[in-house]
C-alpha cells in the first residue's frame, strides 16, 4: 500500500511544521552532549537561548505565514493560532532562561526547560488525547526535577514531592477520563471531548469532568491548587517564573484547544465558572496574608488561572486568541516582576516581602519595574494587564454571562489590595535600618544572590514587551 509513501511525504512536511519542536529537541540534545563533554557551563545558556529564540521566531513566522495542516493525521496538527501560541510561550522562555543565569550553572536547567517546552509544544499541537497525555507528561516531569534543582532551600524536595503526587494524581485522572471517553466513543481524537461535553450521557460527562479537573490540577485551580504555593515558594526564581507563566499558560491554552471553539453548555459551564470564580476569590484573599513574594505570586497565579478559565465562556472564535493574549501579558509582567527582584544572601530572604521595604530608595529602577508588574497583574489601566482582563470579561459578557462577569470582576477587585501592598512596601516604607549592617552581620557567607546583567536584560526585555503591549494592544491583538 502507499502508506509508506504518505509517511515519507509527511516527513518533509513534519520537519518543517514541527520546526519549533525540532529546534527544542536539537537544543536539548546538544546541551546534553555538551554536558557530557564537560563544556556545559559556559555555553549552555547561550545555546539554549539561541535554540529557544529560534524556535519562538520560527513559530511566530510560520504562524504569521498562516501555515496549517495535519502533520500526523489524527495525532498532530498545526494552525496559525497554535503556532503563535507556541511562539508566545517559547518567547517567554527567553527571559526566563536569562534570569536562570543567577541561580544555575551548567546544562541541566536549560536542558530540562527545553524538554519541558517541547512537551508544551506537543501539548498545543496535539490532535489526539494520546499526544496530549504525552505532552503533558513531557512538560511536567522535568519540572519536578527543576523544583529541587537549585536546592537553595531544603523544603524544595517536599514541594517537589507534593507537586509530583498531585500532578501524578492529575495524570491518573486525565487518563481515567480518557479511558472512559475511549470506552464510550472508541476514539481519542480531540473533538470527541468537545462532543462529550455536550453529551447527556453520564459516562461521557464523568470523563469530561475527570479530564477538566486534571487540567484544574495542573493549572492550580481551587481546590486543586494546594501544590502551587509550596512549589512556587521553594523553587528557584527562574523556575517559579517558568511555572507561573509558561507552564500555566501552556496548560490553559491546551485545555482551550481540547475544549475547542464550540459553545459550552450547562452543566459543564458552571464547572468552568464556579471553580475559577472560587479560585479568583480564594487566591486573591489568601495572597493578602503572604509574607513571601513567590508564595504571593503563587496565589496570584491561582487567581489568574481563574480569569483564564473564565475566558472559556467567551465566544468560540475569539476565545483562544483572547487567552493567548492574556497568557502573553500575564507572562511578560510576571517574568518582569521576578527578573527585577533584588538580590539577597539567602534564597529564603530574597523573596520575603520585607526585603522589598524601601526598595525604591535602594534600587529605584527595580522598584518601578516591580511596581509596573504589580499594577499590571492587578489589571489596572493603563497597564497591559487591564487590556487582557478587559478582553476576557468583554467576551464573557458578550457571551451573555453578565452575572458571572460581574462576580469575576468583583473577585478581581479583592486582589488589588495585595498588589498594592507590594507597592506600598517598596515606595512608602523606609528601608529597614538593618540593611546596611546586613552584609557584616551575616557570618556564614553563601555567595550573595546577585542580580546580574542577565537578570537585568531579562527585565529590560520584558519591560519593553510590557510597554509595547500597553501602547499598542490593538496591533498585537490583531495579529493573534
Amino acid at each position, binding site marked *: 500500500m502507499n502508506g509508506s509513501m504518505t509517511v515519507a511525504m509527511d516527513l518533509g512536511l513534519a520537519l518543517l511544521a514541527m520546526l519549533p519542536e525540532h529546534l527544542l529537541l536539537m537544543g536539548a540534545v546538544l546541551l546534553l552532549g555538551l554536558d557530557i563533554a564537560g563544556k556545559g557551563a559556559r555555553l549552555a545558556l547561550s545555546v539554549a537561548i539561541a535554540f529557544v529564540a529560534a524556535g519562538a521566531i520560527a513559530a511566530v513566522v510560520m504562524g504569521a505565514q498562516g501555515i496549517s495542516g495535519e502533520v500526523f493525521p489524527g495525532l498532530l496538527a498545526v494552525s496559525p493560532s497554535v503556532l503563535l501560541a507556541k511562539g508566545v510561550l517559547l518567547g517567554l522562555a527567553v527571559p526566563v532562561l536569562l534570569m536562570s543565569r543567577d541561580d544555575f550553572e551548567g546544562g541541566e536547567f536549560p536542558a530540562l526547560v527545553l524538554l519541558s517546552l517541547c512537551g508544551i509544544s506537543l501539548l498545543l499541537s496535539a490532535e489526539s488525547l494520546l499526544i496530549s497525555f504525552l505532552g503533558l507528561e513531557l512538560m511536567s516531569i522535568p519540572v519536578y526535577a527543576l523544583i529541587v534543582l537549585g536546592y537553595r532551600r531544603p523544603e524544595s524536595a517536599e514541594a517537589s*514531592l*507534593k507537586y509530583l*503526587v*498531585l500532578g501524578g*494524581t*492529575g495524570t491518573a*485522572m486525565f487518563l481515567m477520563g480518557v479511558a472512559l471517553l475511549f470506552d464510550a466513543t472508541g476514539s481519542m481524537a480531540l473533538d470527541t471531548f468537545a462532543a462529550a461535553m455536550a453529551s*447527556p450521557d*453520564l459516562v461521557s*460527562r*464523568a470523563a*469530561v*469532568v*475527570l479530564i*477538566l*479537573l486534571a487540567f*484544574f*490540577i495542573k493549572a492550580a485551580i481551587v*481546590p*486543586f491548587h*494546594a*501544590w502551587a*504555593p*509550596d512549589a512556587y515558594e521553594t523553587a528557584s526564581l527562574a523556575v517559579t517564573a517558568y511555572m507561573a507563566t509558561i507552564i500555566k499558560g501552556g496548560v490553559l491554552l491546551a485545555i482551550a484547544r481540547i475544549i475547542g471553539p464550540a459553545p459550552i453548555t*450547562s*452543566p*459543564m459551564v*458552571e*464547572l468552568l465558572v464556579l*471553580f475559577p470564580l472560587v479560585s479568583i476569590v*480564594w487566591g486573591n*484573599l*489568601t495572597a*493578602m*496574608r*503572604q509574607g513571601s513574594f513567590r508564595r504571593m505570586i503563587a496565589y496570584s497565579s491561582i487567581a489568574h488561572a481563574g480569569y483564564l478559565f473564565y475566558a472559556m465562556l467567551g465566544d468560540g472564535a475569539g476565545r483562544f486568541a483572547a487567552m493567548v493574549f492574556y497568557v502573553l501579558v500575564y507572562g511578560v509582567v510576571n517574568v518582569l516582576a521576578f527578573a527585577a527582584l533584588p538580590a539577597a544572601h539567602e534564597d529564603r530572604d530574597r523573596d520575603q516581602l520585607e526585603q522589598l521595604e524601601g526598595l525604591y530608595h535602594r534600587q529605584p529602577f527595580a522598584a518601578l519595574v516591580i511596581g509596573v508588574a504589580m499594577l499590571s497583574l492587578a489589571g489596572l489601566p493603563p497597564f497591559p494587564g487591564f487590556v487582557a482582563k478587559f478582553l476576557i470579561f468583554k467576551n464573557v459578557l458578550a457571551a451573555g454571562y453578565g452575572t458571572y462577569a460581574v462576580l469575576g470582576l468583583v473577585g478581581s477587585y*479583592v486582589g488589588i*489590595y495585595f498588589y498594592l501592598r507590594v507597592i506600598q512596601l517598596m515606595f512608602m516604607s523606609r528601608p529597614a535600618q538593618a540593611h546596611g549592617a546586613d552584609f557584616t552581620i551575616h557570618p556564614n557567607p553563601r555567595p550573595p544572590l546577585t542580580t546580574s546583567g542577565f537578570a537585568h536584560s531579562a527585565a529590560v526585555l520584558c519591560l519593553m514587551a510590557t510597554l509595547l503591549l500597553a501602547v499598542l494592544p490593538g496591533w498585537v491583538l490583531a495579529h493573534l
Partner: protein
Amino acid sequence: MSQTLPAPVDAAWHALLLIVLLPLAGFLINGVLATALGGRNVSRRFVSVVACGAAFASFLLTLRMFLMLRAGGYLPIVDSVYRWALVGDYAFDVAFYFDRLSAIMTLVVTGVGTLIHVYSTGYMHDDKSYGRFFAYLNLFLFFMLVLVLGRSMLVLFVGWEGVGLASYLLIGFWFDQLANARAGRKAFITNRIGDAGFLLGMFLLHQAVGTLDMDTINRAFLINPLPAVSASLIGVLLFVGATGKSAQIPLYVWLPDAMAGPTPVSALIHAATMVTAGVYLVARMSGVYLQAPEASQVMAIIGVATAFFAATVALVQTDIKKVLAYSTVSQLGFMVLALGVGAYGVAVFHMVTHAFFKACLFLGAGSVIHALSGEQDIRKMGGLAKRIPVTFATFAVATAAIAGLPPLAGFFSKDEILWYAFASTGGGSPWLWGVAALTALLTAFYMFRLLWLTFLGASRVEPSVAHHIHESPLSMTSVLVILAVLSAVGGALALPHFLEPQLALPPVNEALHHLETPLVVVSVVLSLAGLAAAWFMYGGATSRAAAWQARWPGVHGVLAGKYFVDELYDRLLARPLVWISREVFLKIGDRLLLDGALHGLASLGQRAAGALSRVQSGSLHRYALLVMLGLVSALLWSWSHG
C-alpha cells in the same frame, strides 16, 4: 394704581459706575498699602485724604447726578455696565439705576458716609490699624452704593452681601478679642439666614417674571400681577431677607452685639445706612408688596412688635451703645411698620431722619467714649455736660429728635408713621397705632434716661478717668454739629411728597380723617410724658430708679437679660445643630455606620484570608483530600441538568 413708571434714560457716561468705583479705589489703595506693605510707609494723612476724598467725591458726583436727574424731569437714569451672564434666554446684567428713591439713598449714604469718614479721622487717630479701618469703611461704602444703585436684584444682592462682609470685618475690627470677632461672625451668619430667604424670593421672582431687573419686575406686577399667594410668598421671602439686614424679629439679635465695632462703624453701618437696606429693599420692591396684602400684614405686625420689644429692652440697658442699638432696632421696627401699612415713602422719610439723628447720637456717644478713654457704662458717667459741651448739645438735639419732640426731624417722620399705622387702608388699625404710640412713649423715656445719666446729674466717673476728660477734636465735633443741624431741620424735607410719584402713599380711611390732629397732639404729649418720666426717675436722686428696679426684680431681670432670646437661640438652634452634627452625623453616621461597615468588610476579608490560608496546612494528605472532594463534587454536579 396711579403710579407712573417712566421709561429710563441712559446715562451719558458711566457716572453712576464712577460713584460706585471711587470708594472701591479708595479701598484698594488703602487696603493694599495697609496690609501688603504693613502700613509702615503710609502716613495717616495720606490714608485720610484718600478715604475721605473718595467718599466726598462720590457725594459730589451724586449731587451732580441728582441735579441731572432733576433736570431730566426725574426720569430714571440707567447706567448699563456689562453683561454679567447670559444663560439661554436669560440675561443677568450689571446696571445702575438712579431714580428718586435711589437718589435719596445715595445722597444719604455718601453724605452721612463722608461725614463719618471725617469723624473717624479724629476718632480712630490713635489706632494702630488706621489704614485698615479706612479701607474697610471705603469697602463698605462701595458695597452700599452697589446696593442702592443696582438695577437688578442680583446687583442689589451683591451689595447686600458685600455690606454684610464689611460689617463683619468692621464689627470684628479689634479682632484680638475673640468676642468682637464672634460678634462679627454672628452678624454675618444671622444675615445669611435672611439672605437664604432673600435668595428664595429672588428665585421665585425670576421664575415668575424671567428677569431680576427691579424696575421691570415692578412694572410687570403693575401690569399683570401674579396671583396674590405668589406675590405674598415672594413678599414674605424677601422680607425674611429684610429682617436679617434690618434687624427685625426674629433675626435682630446680631445688631446689639454689633456694637463691638468701633463707634463710627456703629453710626454708619449699624444705624444710618446698612441696617436700612431691608427697608430700602421693600420700598424698592413696592410693586410686589402692593399685590401682597398678607406679606404687608406680616411686616406691619413684625415691625410694631420689634419696635415695642426693642424699646422695652432699651429701658434698662446700661451700655451707652447698647441703648442706642436697641433704639435702632426699635426705630427700624417703626420703618417696617410703615412699610407694612403701605406708606413706603414715609418709611424712607423716617429712614433718612433716623440716619441723621441716630448717626448724631452714635457719634456723640463715640465722642463721650473717646472722652472717657473707652468707658461705655452709663452708670459710670454723669455730669459730662459741662466737660464736653458740644457733644452734649448735639446729643441733646438728637435725643429730642428721636423722642419726637416738635419741630425736630423725628417728630415729622414718626408722626406720619403713627398716622398711617392708624388710618391707612393698606392695613392700618388702632391696635398698631396703640402699640406704636406706647413705643414712642418708651422711646422718649429711655432716650432721656440716657441723656440724663450720661450728661446730667452728679458725676460718677471713675477718678482715674475723670481728670483727662476732654472735648473731641474739631474733626469730630464739626460732624456732630452738622448732624445735629440736620436732625433738627431734616423734617422739612417732606420726602414722602417728593417720593410720591414713585412710591404712592396709601389712601387713608376717610372716616378717620378728622382724628389726624388729635393724634398728633397725643403723640406730642406722649413724648413729653416720656421726658417727664425720665426726669422723674433719673432727674432727681437716682434711688428712685433703683427702688423701682428693686420692686420688680423679675421684670428688670427679663428686660436686662433681653428676654433671654440669645440664650434661647443658643439652646434651640446652635447647640442642637452642633450636637446632631457631632453625635449623630459624625459619630454614628460617618464613624460607626460608614467607616464601621468599611472596616468591618476589611477585617472580614482579612479573617477570611486567614481562614483560607489555614486550609493550606502543608499536609499532602489534606491536599489530596481536597482533590478528591473537588472531584466528587464536580462529578455530582455533572449529573445535574440531566
